[in-house]
């Protein structure tokens, strides 16, 4: 009989090793101006991406998945050494913001325990029991366990009508990550793997703090934003452990920050980060495609679309997103969005759509917005108290565009707008919290 501690320690070792390897490669995506916190966050994202990619690569190459993960890890370590050797001289220069020293101030010492408290509470909620939420059992965990158990991707995951409940049209990024972790572990352990989620929360907080500091936000505001996000129970909950929302919250923050860095031409590597974040977002949830579309729209709408930066950013979004979607279409075939009836967009049914839009908005107000008015009022005050700043404004616009899409898309719900708003609106909007936190904090105060 095996308890929890050993598999938990094994998962922790795999995740930390992935993060360490990813940190080595982060130099290909971040300049020396990025602090350790942001580097660690991107490193974790790269490590997870490599780990998740190891399973499909192994299936394609007909190699054992564990061997492929180790091979990818070894190649990544080699790549990291080469990168370090090439950029060795300038690596230590320019690091001034985003480091841990900024935390050793009086506000830092007061706020850090709040961040730690939020992280500890979420870790307790995530690890109390094996992952259990309905969507984990029916969708994310089911596909991951099937891929792991079958040692491949059975065709029936896309083709069997009896498996419609598992949403064959959803991306396989998270199931591949579960399967790859299990191949390395040597077994399926849906309790120990829950540790992934506190790690994702920690990476999100590091990304938020690191980016805010790099963009000149004071340590106190950056840390306060991290403290608020760490304690954001509607996202970091036991229910969401195992589902795609917490990973998507992380990658949407990476996407948003890379997008505004690319548009502001902060550094030459921002476009690479944006392309990587697009791949991660589109591979994690269908909302990633919406996020990419919203990002591309912002590129088009940004003043001076003819500018090379706007075009470069748009290309960094559109090229990977379209490639992934086409590859998915070729591999899986045409899979309709199960929850939606797109015939409502047709000319004969358009008259049905307007009442549905009204119903979606009404239900969202009744079920989500009115019950959470005190918190939303605070957010509105924080937005109003901020000053216009290009990066913050764009992030806010990105979050608002996604919110509007989540509010209006249920108008096309096959089972009615009321049902989809009730089951998904609050959950999907909560995943925009890191993006909103970055937007609001970056508009509040910038160092001189």
């Amino acid at each position, binding site marked *: *009989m*095996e*308890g*929890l*501690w050993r598999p938990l320690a094994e998962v922790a070792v795999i995740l930390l090793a992935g993060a360490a390897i990813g940190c080595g490669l982060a130099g290909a995506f971040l300049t020396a101006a990025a602090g350790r916190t942001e580097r660690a966050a991107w490193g974790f994202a790269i490590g997870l991406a490599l780990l998740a990619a190891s399973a499909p690569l192994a299936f394609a190459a007909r190699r054992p998945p564990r061997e492929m993960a180790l091979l990818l890890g070894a190649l990544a370590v080699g790549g990291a050494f080469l990168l370090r050797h090439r950029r060795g001289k300038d690596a230590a220069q320019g690091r001034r913001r985003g480091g841990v020293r900024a935390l050793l101030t009086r506000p830092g010492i007061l706020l850090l325990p*709040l961040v730690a408290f939020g992280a500890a*509470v979420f870790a*307790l*909620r995530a*690890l*109390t*029991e*094996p*992952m*259990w*939420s*309905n969507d984990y*059992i*029916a969708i994310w*965990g*089911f596909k991951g*366990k*099937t*891929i*792991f*158990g*079958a040692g491949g991707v*059975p065709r*029936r995951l896309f083709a*069997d009508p*009896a*498996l419609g*409940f*598992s949403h064959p049209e959803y991306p396989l990024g998270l199931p591949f990550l579960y399967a790859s972790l299990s191949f390395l572990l040597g077994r399926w*352990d*849906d*309790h120990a793997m829950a540790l992934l989620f506190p790690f994702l929360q920690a990476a999100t907080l590091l990304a938020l703090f690191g980016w805010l500091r790099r963009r000149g936000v004071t340590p106190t505001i950056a840390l*306060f934003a991290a*403290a*608020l996000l760490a*304690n*954001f*129970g509607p996202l970091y909950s*036991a229910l969401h452990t195992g589902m795609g929302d917490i990973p998507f919250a992380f990658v949407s923050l990476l996407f948003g920050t890379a997008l505004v860095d690319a548009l502001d031409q902060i550094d030459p590597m921002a476009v690479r980060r944006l392309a990587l974040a697009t791949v991660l977002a589109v591979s994690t949830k269908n909302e990633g495609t919406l996020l990419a579309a919203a990002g591309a729209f912002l590129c088009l709408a940004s003043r001076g679309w003819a500018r090379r930066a706007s075009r470069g950013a748009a290309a960094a979004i559109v090229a990977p997103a379209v490639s992934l979607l086409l590859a998915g279409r070729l591999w899986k075939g045409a899979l309709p969005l199960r929850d939606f009836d797109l015939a409502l967009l047709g000319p004969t049914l358009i008259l049905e759509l307007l009442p549905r839009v009204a119903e979606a908005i009404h239900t969202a107000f009744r079920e989500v917005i009115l019950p959470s008015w*005190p*918190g939303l009022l*605070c*957010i509105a*005050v*924080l937005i*109003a*108290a*901020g*000053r216009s700043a290009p990066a913050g404004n764009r992030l806010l616009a990105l979050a608002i565009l996604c919110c509007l899409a989540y509010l209006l898309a249920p108008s096309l719900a096959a089972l009615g707008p009321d049902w989809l708003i009730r089951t998904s609106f609050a959950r999907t909007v909560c995943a925009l919290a890191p993006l909103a936190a970055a937007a609001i904090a970056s508009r*509040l*105060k910038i160092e001189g």
Partner: protein
Amino acid sequence: MNLRQGLAAAASGVLLLLLLWGDDPKELARRARTLAGSVGSELAVRRLHGSGTAQDRRFFAFLESARRRLPAGTVGVAITGLPPSDAALYIAAYQFAPTPVLLDPQSVPPGWLLAVYGTARPAGWKVVAPVWGGALMAPT
């Protein structure tokens, strides 16, 4: 501190308090006790006592027992003996994955086993393994 900064500080403080207010100390204590009490248990026992099986723990015990007795190379499992529900289908499909599962099908596909929940034993089928709360059966 100007008015904007004052408003921002007040709103941030209230928001933080609202978020912290959402943490129920009793819930956190209960979670800590559950974790401490179950940490040495087998994974299946932890799931049996968890939220994912709260709807019908006996059915989960049956599924886990049947999964353990499933002969290698089983093509699929048809489960009968309980009213079909989404929750039962999801947990059964998850528990048996990657082996395909059908819940209360009109007919059992060739080569599949039948997992009967309860005491009924359909004609034309023989017990290949008794399991907790039911039996695994194959065509005679």
